[in-house]
Protein backbone atom coordinates (compact mmCIF):
# COMPACT_ATOMS: atom_id res chain seq x y z
CA UNK A 1 0.00 0.00 0.00
CA UNK A 2 1.33 3.37 -0.99
CA UNK A 3 1.90 5.95 1.70
CA UNK A 4 2.16 8.75 -0.90
CA UNK A 5 -0.58 11.38 -1.07
CA UNK A 6 -3.06 10.18 -3.73
CA UNK A 7 -3.80 13.74 -4.84
CA UNK A 8 -0.42 13.66 -6.60
CA UNK A 9 -0.68 10.15 -8.05
CA UNK A 10 -1.34 11.44 -11.59
CA UNK A 11 1.48 11.90 -14.11
CA UNK A 12 3.78 14.88 -13.62
CA UNK A 13 2.36 18.03 -15.24
CA UNK A 14 5.01 18.37 -17.94
CA UNK A 15 4.74 14.69 -18.84
CA UNK A 16 0.94 14.92 -19.00
CA UNK A 17 1.16 18.03 -21.20
CA UNK A 18 3.60 16.35 -23.60
CA UNK A 19 1.40 13.26 -23.81
CA UNK A 20 -1.63 15.32 -24.85
CA UNK A 21 0.48 17.29 -27.32
CA UNK A 22 1.80 14.06 -28.87
CA UNK A 23 -1.87 13.06 -29.32
CA UNK A 24 -2.42 16.30 -31.25
CA UNK A 25 -4.07 18.37 -28.51
CA UNK A 26 -2.54 21.68 -27.35
CA UNK A 27 -3.53 22.30 -23.74
CA UNK A 28 -2.86 24.71 -20.89
CA UNK A 29 -3.81 24.31 -17.23
CA UNK A 30 -6.97 25.61 -15.62
CA UNK A 31 -7.38 25.93 -11.85
CA UNK A 32 -10.52 24.57 -10.18
CA UNK A 33 -9.73 26.71 -7.13
CA UNK A 34 -9.62 30.22 -8.61
CA UNK A 35 -10.41 29.76 -12.28
CA UNK A 36 -7.13 31.13 -13.57
CA UNK A 37 -5.12 29.60 -16.40
CA UNK A 38 -1.41 28.96 -16.59
CA UNK A 39 1.41 27.81 -18.83
CA UNK A 40 3.85 26.05 -18.53
CA UNK A 41 2.01 23.37 -16.54
CA UNK A 42 2.90 23.02 -12.89
CA UNK A 43 1.94 20.89 -9.88
CA UNK A 44 -0.08 23.74 -8.40
CA UNK A 45 -1.77 26.99 -9.35
CA UNK A 46 0.67 29.92 -9.39
CA UNK A 47 -2.17 32.33 -8.60
CA UNK A 48 -3.84 30.69 -5.57
CA UNK A 49 -1.73 27.66 -4.64
CA UNK A 50 -4.49 25.11 -5.25
CA UNK A 51 -3.33 21.68 -6.41
CA UNK A 52 -6.58 21.16 -8.32
CA UNK A 53 -5.18 22.07 -11.72
CA UNK A 54 -6.16 20.26 -14.92
CA UNK A 55 -5.17 20.43 -18.58
CA UNK A 56 -7.80 21.93 -20.87
CA UNK A 57 -7.68 22.11 -24.68
CA UNK A 58 -6.82 25.41 -26.33
CA UNK A 59 -8.40 27.03 -29.35
CA UNK A 60 -4.91 27.97 -30.45
CA UNK A 61 -5.70 31.63 -31.07
CA UNK A 62 -3.08 34.03 -29.75
CA UNK A 63 -1.65 37.53 -30.13
CA UNK A 64 2.04 38.45 -30.42
CA UNK A 65 3.12 40.03 -27.10
CA UNK A 66 6.74 40.62 -28.11
CA UNK A 67 9.07 39.44 -30.83
CA UNK A 68 12.75 39.37 -31.79
CA UNK A 69 14.73 38.31 -34.82
CA UNK A 70 17.74 36.25 -33.81
CA UNK A 71 20.62 37.06 -36.18
CA UNK A 72 22.32 33.73 -36.77
CA UNK A 73 25.08 33.34 -39.37
CA UNK A 74 22.76 31.23 -41.52
CA UNK A 75 20.09 33.96 -41.44
CA UNK A 76 17.59 35.54 -39.11
CA UNK A 77 14.82 33.58 -37.43
CA UNK A 78 11.96 34.55 -35.19
CA UNK A 79 11.46 34.06 -31.46
CA UNK A 80 8.21 35.44 -30.08
CA UNK A 81 6.19 35.57 -26.92
CA UNK A 82 2.51 35.04 -27.69
CA UNK A 83 -0.38 35.69 -25.34
CA UNK A 84 -3.30 33.27 -25.21
CA UNK A 85 -6.87 34.57 -24.76
CA UNK A 86 -6.95 33.17 -21.19
CA UNK A 87 -3.85 35.18 -20.27
CA UNK A 88 -0.79 32.91 -20.17
CA UNK A 89 2.15 33.64 -22.45
CA UNK A 90 4.52 31.23 -24.12
CA UNK A 91 7.73 31.40 -26.07
CA UNK A 92 7.39 30.14 -29.63
CA UNK A 93 8.20 30.81 -33.29
CA UNK A 94 5.84 32.60 -35.65
CA UNK A 95 5.87 31.30 -39.22
CA UNK A 96 4.26 32.36 -42.51
CA UNK A 97 5.80 35.85 -42.52
CA UNK A 98 9.35 37.22 -42.71
CA UNK A 99 10.76 37.45 -39.14
CA UNK A 100 11.41 41.21 -39.44
CA UNK A 101 7.78 41.83 -40.49
CA UNK A 102 6.16 40.43 -37.33
CA UNK A 103 4.61 43.14 -35.16
CA UNK A 104 3.39 43.16 -31.57
CA UNK A 105 -0.38 42.71 -31.66
CA UNK A 106 -0.43 40.49 -34.76
CA UNK A 107 -2.90 37.59 -34.65
CA UNK A 108 -1.46 34.07 -34.79
CA UNK A 109 -2.77 30.50 -34.60
CA UNK A 110 -1.19 27.42 -33.04
CA UNK A 111 0.01 24.46 -35.08
CA UNK A 112 1.57 21.31 -33.64
CA UNK A 113 4.66 20.15 -35.53
CA UNK A 114 7.28 17.46 -35.00
CA UNK A 115 10.87 18.42 -34.41
CA UNK A 116 13.68 16.44 -36.05
CA UNK A 117 14.03 14.43 -32.86
CA UNK A 118 10.34 13.52 -33.00
CA UNK A 119 9.08 15.70 -30.11
CA UNK A 120 5.87 17.64 -30.70
CA UNK A 121 6.13 21.42 -30.29
CA UNK A 122 3.67 24.28 -30.77
CA UNK A 123 4.53 26.89 -33.39
CA UNK A 124 2.19 29.71 -34.48
CA UNK A 125 1.14 30.71 -38.00
CA UNK A 126 0.75 34.38 -38.81
CA UNK A 127 -2.92 35.25 -39.38
CA UNK A 128 -3.00 39.00 -39.80
CA UNK A 129 -2.88 42.43 -38.24
CA UNK A 130 -5.91 43.91 -36.49
Amino acid sequence: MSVADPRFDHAGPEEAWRTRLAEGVFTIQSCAGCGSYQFPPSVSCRSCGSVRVALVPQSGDAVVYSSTTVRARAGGYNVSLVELPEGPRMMTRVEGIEPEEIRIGDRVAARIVRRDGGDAIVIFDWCGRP
Partner: protein
Amino acid sequence: MQDLRGRTAIVGAGNTNRWYAPGRTAFDQLSEAAHLALDDCGLTVRDVDGLFCSLSVSGLPVLNVAEKLGIRPSYADGTMVGGASFIFHLQSAMLALNAGLCNVALICYGANQASGGRGFTPMPDPQPFEEPWGAIYPVSSYALAAARHMHQFGTTRRDLASVAVAARKWAQLNPAAHVRDPLTIEDVLAARMISDPLSKADCCLVTDGGGALVLTRADRAKDLRSEPVYILGTGTAVSHRQIAAMPDLTVTAAVESGAAAYKMAGVGPSDVDHVMVYDAFTITTLLFLEDLGFCTKGEGGAFVSSGAIEPGGSLALNTNGGGLSCNHPGMYGIFTLLESVEQLRGRAGARQKPGAEISLAHANGGVLSAQATAILGTAATL
Protein backbone atom coordinates in the same frame (compact mmCIF):
# COMPACT_ATOMS: atom_id res chain seq x y z
CA MET B 1 14.22 46.50 9.11
CA GLN B 2 14.60 50.21 9.90
CA ASP B 3 16.29 49.09 13.14
CA LEU B 4 19.15 47.73 11.09
CA ARG B 5 19.81 51.00 9.23
CA GLY B 6 23.50 51.84 9.61
CA ARG B 7 24.19 48.88 11.89
CA THR B 8 26.42 47.09 9.38
CA ALA B 9 29.46 48.38 7.52
CA ILE B 10 31.39 47.44 4.43
CA VAL B 11 34.94 47.66 5.79
CA GLY B 12 36.89 46.00 3.00
CA ALA B 13 36.66 46.17 -0.78
CA GLY B 14 38.67 44.13 -3.26
CA ASN B 15 38.65 44.27 -7.05
CA THR B 16 41.23 42.35 -9.09
CA ASN B 17 40.80 44.70 -12.07
CA ARG B 18 41.94 41.78 -14.26
CA TRP B 19 39.41 41.68 -17.07
CA TYR B 20 41.37 39.30 -19.29
CA ALA B 21 43.71 37.10 -17.28
CA PRO B 22 44.64 33.80 -18.95
CA GLY B 23 45.91 31.07 -16.66
CA ARG B 24 43.66 32.02 -13.77
CA THR B 25 40.59 30.05 -12.73
CA ALA B 26 37.39 31.66 -11.46
CA PHE B 27 38.48 30.63 -7.96
CA ASP B 28 41.88 32.30 -8.47
CA GLN B 29 40.14 35.58 -9.32
CA LEU B 30 37.83 35.19 -6.32
CA SER B 31 40.70 34.38 -3.95
CA GLU B 32 42.77 37.37 -5.07
CA ALA B 33 39.79 39.68 -4.60
CA ALA B 34 39.12 38.21 -1.13
CA HIS B 35 42.70 38.89 -0.05
CA LEU B 36 42.56 42.44 -1.44
CA ALA B 37 39.35 43.11 0.50
CA LEU B 38 40.77 41.71 3.73
CA ASP B 39 44.04 43.64 3.28
CA ASP B 40 41.98 46.79 2.80
CA CYS B 41 40.69 46.62 6.38
CA GLY B 42 43.61 44.84 8.06
CA LEU B 43 41.84 41.52 8.62
CA THR B 44 42.88 38.06 7.36
CA VAL B 45 41.11 34.92 6.22
CA ARG B 46 41.57 33.63 9.80
CA ASP B 47 39.10 36.32 10.94
CA VAL B 48 36.36 35.33 8.47
CA ASP B 49 33.52 33.30 9.99
CA GLY B 50 30.74 34.22 7.55
CA LEU B 51 31.09 33.20 3.90
CA PHE B 52 28.84 34.39 1.09
CA CYS B 53 29.66 33.44 -2.49
CA SER B 54 28.27 32.39 -5.84
CA LEU B 55 29.95 31.55 -9.15
CA SER B 56 28.72 30.53 -12.59
CA VAL B 57 31.16 27.61 -12.59
CA SER B 58 30.25 25.99 -9.28
CA GLY B 59 27.19 24.20 -7.97
CA LEU B 60 28.78 24.06 -4.50
CA PRO B 61 30.37 27.50 -4.20
CA VAL B 62 30.54 27.70 -0.38
CA LEU B 63 32.31 24.35 -0.08
CA ASN B 64 34.86 25.11 -2.78
CA VAL B 65 35.65 28.61 -1.57
CA ALA B 66 35.87 27.58 2.10
CA GLU B 67 38.38 24.90 1.18
CA LYS B 68 40.45 27.09 -1.13
CA LEU B 69 40.66 30.01 1.29
CA GLY B 70 41.01 27.86 4.40
CA ILE B 71 37.87 29.24 6.04
CA ARG B 72 35.64 27.26 8.41
CA PRO B 73 32.55 29.46 8.41
CA SER B 74 29.98 29.28 11.18
CA TYR B 75 27.49 30.86 8.77
CA ALA B 76 27.36 30.60 4.97
CA ASP B 77 25.02 31.48 2.13
CA GLY B 78 25.50 30.43 -1.49
CA THR B 79 22.23 31.82 -2.83
CA MET B 80 22.36 31.75 -6.63
CA VAL B 81 20.05 34.24 -8.35
CA GLY B 82 22.47 35.21 -11.11
CA GLY B 83 24.13 38.61 -11.06
CA ALA B 84 21.89 39.88 -8.25
CA SER B 85 23.26 37.24 -5.86
CA PHE B 86 25.75 39.53 -4.15
CA ILE B 87 23.16 42.05 -2.94
CA PHE B 88 21.05 39.12 -1.72
CA HIS B 89 24.26 38.05 0.08
CA LEU B 90 24.75 41.59 1.41
CA GLN B 91 21.31 41.51 3.00
CA SER B 92 21.86 38.01 4.35
CA ALA B 93 25.27 39.01 5.78
CA MET B 94 23.74 42.05 7.45
CA LEU B 95 21.13 39.86 9.14
CA ALA B 96 23.64 37.18 10.13
CA LEU B 97 26.09 39.72 11.59
CA ASN B 98 23.42 41.43 13.65
CA ALA B 99 21.96 38.13 14.84
CA GLY B 100 25.41 37.15 16.09
CA LEU B 101 25.72 34.21 13.70
CA CYS B 102 29.04 35.57 12.46
CA ASN B 103 31.38 38.48 13.12
CA VAL B 104 33.32 38.99 9.90
CA ALA B 105 31.46 38.35 6.65
CA LEU B 106 33.20 37.85 3.31
CA ILE B 107 31.19 38.24 0.08
CA CYS B 108 33.21 37.10 -2.92
CA TYR B 109 33.06 36.23 -6.61
CA GLY B 110 35.32 35.35 -9.50
CA ALA B 111 35.07 34.39 -13.16
CA ASN B 112 37.29 33.63 -16.15
CA GLN B 113 34.67 33.46 -18.88
CA ALA B 114 36.68 35.62 -21.32
CA SER B 115 40.10 34.00 -21.12
CA GLY B 116 38.66 30.58 -20.31
CA GLY B 117 37.47 30.40 -23.92
CA ARG B 118 33.84 29.51 -23.32
CA GLY B 119 32.33 32.83 -24.36
CA PHE B 120 29.02 33.64 -22.74
CA THR B 121 28.36 31.80 -19.51
CA PRO B 122 25.90 29.09 -20.53
CA MET B 123 22.33 28.84 -19.28
CA PRO B 124 22.69 27.41 -15.78
CA ASP B 125 19.62 25.19 -15.81
CA PRO B 126 17.61 23.51 -18.57
CA GLN B 127 14.48 25.36 -19.69
CA PRO B 128 12.43 22.88 -21.73
CA PHE B 129 9.83 25.46 -22.77
CA GLU B 130 12.49 27.83 -24.15
CA GLU B 131 15.00 25.36 -25.58
CA PRO B 132 13.16 24.54 -28.85
CA TRP B 133 13.14 28.13 -30.08
CA GLY B 134 16.83 28.97 -30.35
CA ALA B 135 16.63 32.17 -28.33
CA ILE B 136 20.16 33.35 -27.51
CA TYR B 137 20.48 33.15 -23.74
CA PRO B 138 20.18 35.65 -22.21
CA VAL B 139 20.23 38.30 -24.99
CA SER B 140 16.95 37.39 -26.67
CA SER B 141 15.01 37.62 -23.40
CA TYR B 142 16.22 41.19 -22.91
CA ALA B 143 15.54 41.90 -26.58
CA LEU B 144 11.91 40.86 -26.04
CA ALA B 145 11.69 43.27 -23.10
CA ALA B 146 13.25 46.05 -25.17
CA ALA B 147 10.85 45.44 -28.08
CA ARG B 148 7.91 45.62 -25.70
CA HIS B 149 9.14 48.87 -24.13
CA MET B 150 9.58 50.38 -27.61
CA HIS B 151 6.07 49.29 -28.58
CA GLN B 152 4.39 50.52 -25.43
CA PHE B 153 6.23 53.80 -24.84
CA GLY B 154 7.77 54.77 -28.17
CA THR B 155 11.31 54.20 -26.91
CA THR B 156 13.78 54.16 -29.81
CA ARG B 157 17.00 52.34 -30.62
CA ARG B 158 18.66 55.76 -30.48
CA ASP B 159 17.45 56.13 -26.85
CA LEU B 160 18.98 52.76 -26.00
CA ALA B 161 22.18 53.71 -27.81
CA SER B 162 22.54 56.77 -25.62
CA VAL B 163 22.90 54.45 -22.61
CA ALA B 164 25.88 52.72 -24.21
CA VAL B 165 27.42 56.07 -25.17
CA ALA B 166 27.05 57.47 -21.62
CA ALA B 167 28.62 54.31 -20.17
CA ARG B 168 31.57 54.69 -22.52
CA LYS B 169 32.07 58.34 -21.57
CA TRP B 170 32.24 57.32 -17.91
CA ALA B 171 34.64 54.48 -18.79
CA GLN B 172 36.93 57.02 -20.44
CA LEU B 173 37.28 58.64 -16.99
CA ASN B 174 38.12 55.29 -15.36
CA PRO B 175 41.65 54.00 -16.03
CA ALA B 176 40.55 50.53 -14.88
CA ALA B 177 37.73 50.24 -17.45
CA HIS B 178 38.24 47.48 -20.02
CA VAL B 179 36.98 49.38 -23.10
CA ARG B 180 37.66 53.10 -23.42
CA ASP B 181 37.57 53.77 -27.19
CA PRO B 182 35.29 56.59 -28.32
CA LEU B 183 31.73 55.45 -29.07
CA THR B 184 28.94 57.37 -30.84
CA ILE B 185 25.21 56.81 -31.22
CA GLU B 186 25.85 55.99 -34.87
CA ASP B 187 28.44 53.35 -33.89
CA VAL B 188 25.87 51.63 -31.66
CA LEU B 189 23.16 51.76 -34.32
CA ALA B 190 25.57 50.37 -36.95
CA ALA B 191 26.89 47.53 -34.76
CA ARG B 192 26.02 43.96 -35.74
CA MET B 193 22.54 42.97 -34.64
CA ILE B 194 22.42 40.07 -32.18
CA SER B 195 18.72 39.79 -31.40
CA ASP B 196 16.56 42.70 -32.60
CA PRO B 197 16.43 45.43 -31.34
CA LEU B 198 19.72 44.81 -29.49
CA SER B 199 23.03 45.11 -31.32
CA LYS B 200 26.41 43.97 -30.03
CA ALA B 201 26.95 47.49 -28.67
CA ASP B 202 23.72 47.21 -26.63
CA CYS B 203 25.18 44.17 -24.86
CA CYS B 204 27.57 44.07 -21.93
CA LEU B 205 31.21 43.06 -22.27
CA VAL B 206 32.38 39.49 -21.75
CA THR B 207 35.33 39.67 -19.34
CA ASP B 208 37.06 37.91 -16.49
CA GLY B 209 37.14 39.46 -13.04
CA GLY B 210 37.02 39.07 -9.29
CA GLY B 211 35.40 41.13 -6.56
CA ALA B 212 35.00 40.87 -2.80
CA LEU B 213 33.63 42.77 0.19
CA VAL B 214 34.24 42.39 3.93
CA LEU B 215 31.47 43.35 6.35
CA THR B 216 31.33 43.76 10.12
CA ARG B 217 28.87 45.27 12.56
CA ALA B 218 29.20 49.05 12.60
CA ASP B 219 30.62 49.20 16.15
CA ARG B 220 33.58 47.03 15.17
CA ALA B 221 34.11 48.92 11.91
CA LYS B 222 35.31 51.98 13.78
CA ASP B 223 38.32 50.04 15.09
CA LEU B 224 39.51 48.91 11.66
CA ARG B 225 41.96 50.85 9.54
CA SER B 226 39.71 51.38 6.51
CA GLU B 227 37.00 53.97 6.00
CA PRO B 228 33.69 52.19 6.60
CA VAL B 229 30.71 52.52 4.28
CA TYR B 230 27.40 51.86 6.02
CA ILE B 231 24.43 49.83 4.83
CA LEU B 232 21.40 52.11 5.11
CA GLY B 233 18.87 49.93 3.34
CA THR B 234 18.43 46.73 1.36
CA GLY B 235 15.63 45.09 -0.58
CA THR B 236 15.29 41.95 -2.66
CA ALA B 237 12.60 40.54 -4.94
CA VAL B 238 12.12 37.63 -7.33
CA SER B 239 9.46 37.56 -10.04
CA HIS B 240 10.08 34.67 -12.49
CA ARG B 241 12.67 32.48 -14.18
CA GLN B 242 11.68 32.42 -17.88
CA ILE B 243 10.98 35.65 -19.71
CA ALA B 244 7.56 34.31 -20.84
CA ALA B 245 6.55 34.19 -17.16
CA MET B 246 7.47 37.81 -16.40
CA PRO B 247 4.21 39.51 -15.44
CA ASP B 248 4.86 42.68 -17.51
CA LEU B 249 8.01 42.95 -19.62
CA THR B 250 8.21 46.69 -19.03
CA VAL B 251 8.07 46.58 -15.21
CA THR B 252 10.68 44.73 -13.14
CA ALA B 253 10.65 43.60 -9.51
CA ALA B 254 13.11 46.46 -8.87
CA VAL B 255 9.93 48.36 -7.99
CA GLU B 256 9.64 46.11 -4.92
CA SER B 257 13.33 45.76 -4.03
CA GLY B 258 13.80 49.52 -4.41
CA ALA B 259 10.78 50.37 -2.27
CA ALA B 260 12.02 48.09 0.51
CA ALA B 261 15.52 49.60 0.40
CA TYR B 262 14.23 53.19 0.38
CA LYS B 263 11.91 52.41 3.30
CA MET B 264 14.65 50.90 5.42
CA ALA B 265 17.06 53.73 4.59
CA GLY B 266 14.44 56.43 5.11
CA VAL B 267 15.40 58.14 1.87
CA GLY B 268 13.96 58.57 -1.63
CA PRO B 269 15.47 58.82 -5.11
CA SER B 270 16.06 62.58 -4.77
CA ASP B 271 18.29 61.99 -1.72
CA VAL B 272 20.64 59.70 -3.62
CA ASP B 273 23.90 61.28 -4.84
CA HIS B 274 25.26 58.41 -6.91
CA VAL B 275 23.63 55.42 -8.60
CA MET B 276 24.84 52.08 -9.92
CA VAL B 277 22.38 49.92 -11.86
CA TYR B 278 23.24 46.62 -13.48
CA ASP B 279 23.58 47.38 -17.20
CA ALA B 280 23.69 43.92 -18.73
CA PHE B 281 22.03 45.49 -21.76
CA THR B 282 21.11 49.07 -22.59
CA ILE B 283 17.44 48.31 -21.88
CA THR B 284 18.18 47.26 -18.29
CA THR B 285 19.58 50.69 -17.38
CA LEU B 286 16.44 52.28 -18.71
CA LEU B 287 14.08 49.89 -16.89
CA PHE B 288 15.87 50.27 -13.54
CA LEU B 289 15.96 54.08 -13.75
CA GLU B 290 12.18 53.96 -14.16
CA ASP B 291 11.50 51.26 -11.58
CA LEU B 292 13.75 52.85 -8.93
CA GLY B 293 12.04 56.21 -9.35
CA PHE B 294 14.71 58.28 -11.12
CA CYS B 295 12.22 58.97 -13.92
CA THR B 296 8.62 57.97 -14.49
CA LYS B 297 7.55 54.75 -16.22
CA GLY B 298 7.77 55.12 -19.97
CA GLU B 299 9.98 58.19 -19.88
CA GLY B 300 13.26 56.33 -19.52
CA GLY B 301 14.06 56.81 -23.20
CA ALA B 302 13.70 60.60 -23.06
CA PHE B 303 15.60 60.70 -19.76
CA VAL B 304 18.67 58.79 -20.95
CA SER B 305 18.81 60.55 -24.32
CA SER B 306 18.73 63.99 -22.63
CA GLY B 307 22.33 63.63 -21.47
CA ALA B 308 21.23 63.25 -17.83
CA ILE B 309 23.34 60.13 -17.25
CA GLU B 310 26.53 61.27 -19.00
CA PRO B 311 29.45 62.77 -17.05
CA GLY B 312 28.32 66.27 -16.08
CA GLY B 313 24.64 65.28 -16.29
CA SER B 314 22.09 65.47 -13.49
CA LEU B 315 22.55 61.85 -12.33
CA ALA B 316 25.97 60.30 -11.63
CA LEU B 317 25.13 56.82 -12.96
CA ASN B 318 27.31 53.77 -13.58
CA THR B 319 30.41 55.88 -13.10
CA ASN B 320 32.86 52.99 -13.55
CA GLY B 321 31.63 52.52 -17.13
CA GLY B 322 29.25 49.73 -16.14
CA GLY B 323 28.87 46.27 -17.55
CA LEU B 324 28.72 47.88 -20.97
CA SER B 325 32.23 49.38 -20.87
CA CYS B 326 34.08 48.60 -17.60
CA ASN B 327 33.73 44.86 -17.03
CA HIS B 328 31.21 42.03 -17.07
CA PRO B 329 32.51 38.69 -15.82
CA GLY B 330 29.02 37.14 -16.01
CA MET B 331 27.59 38.04 -12.59
CA TYR B 332 28.34 41.75 -12.43
CA GLY B 333 26.30 42.72 -9.35
CA ILE B 334 29.21 42.84 -6.92
CA PHE B 335 30.88 45.50 -9.05
CA THR B 336 27.94 47.86 -8.54
CA LEU B 337 28.66 47.69 -4.79
CA LEU B 338 32.41 48.10 -5.30
CA GLU B 339 31.97 51.29 -7.33
CA SER B 340 29.50 52.67 -4.76
CA VAL B 341 32.14 52.10 -2.07
CA GLU B 342 34.81 53.84 -4.20
CA GLN B 343 32.55 56.84 -4.65
CA LEU B 344 31.52 57.08 -0.98
CA ARG B 345 35.16 56.89 0.06
CA GLY B 346 35.94 59.71 -2.39
CA ARG B 347 38.52 57.61 -4.21
CA ALA B 348 37.03 57.58 -7.72
CA GLY B 349 39.47 60.04 -9.27
CA ALA B 350 38.34 61.82 -12.44
CA ARG B 351 34.92 60.18 -12.26
CA GLN B 352 34.29 61.10 -8.61
CA LYS B 353 30.87 62.55 -7.80
CA PRO B 354 31.86 65.47 -5.54
CA GLY B 355 30.49 65.15 -2.03
CA ALA B 356 28.75 61.81 -2.59
CA GLU B 357 27.20 60.73 0.72
CA ILE B 358 24.47 58.31 -0.36
CA SER B 359 24.84 55.77 -3.14
CA LEU B 360 22.32 53.28 -4.48
CA ALA B 361 23.57 50.00 -5.98
CA HIS B 362 21.10 47.84 -7.87
CA ALA B 363 21.69 44.37 -9.29
CA ASN B 364 19.74 42.13 -11.61
CA GLY B 365 19.83 38.36 -12.05
CA GLY B 366 18.57 35.86 -14.61
CA VAL B 367 16.41 37.51 -17.26
CA LEU B 368 15.09 40.49 -15.27
CA SER B 369 14.17 37.76 -12.77
CA ALA B 370 15.84 38.66 -9.47
CA GLN B 371 16.26 42.25 -8.30
CA ALA B 372 18.23 43.54 -5.34
CA THR B 373 18.84 47.08 -4.16
CA ALA B 374 21.30 48.39 -1.57
CA ILE B 375 21.53 51.94 -0.30
CA LEU B 376 24.91 52.79 1.18
CA GLY B 377 26.06 55.88 3.04
CA THR B 378 29.04 57.58 4.62
CA ALA B 379 29.36 58.14 8.38
CA ALA B 380 27.69 61.53 7.87
CA THR B 381 24.42 59.80 6.86
CA LEU B 382 24.03 57.83 10.10
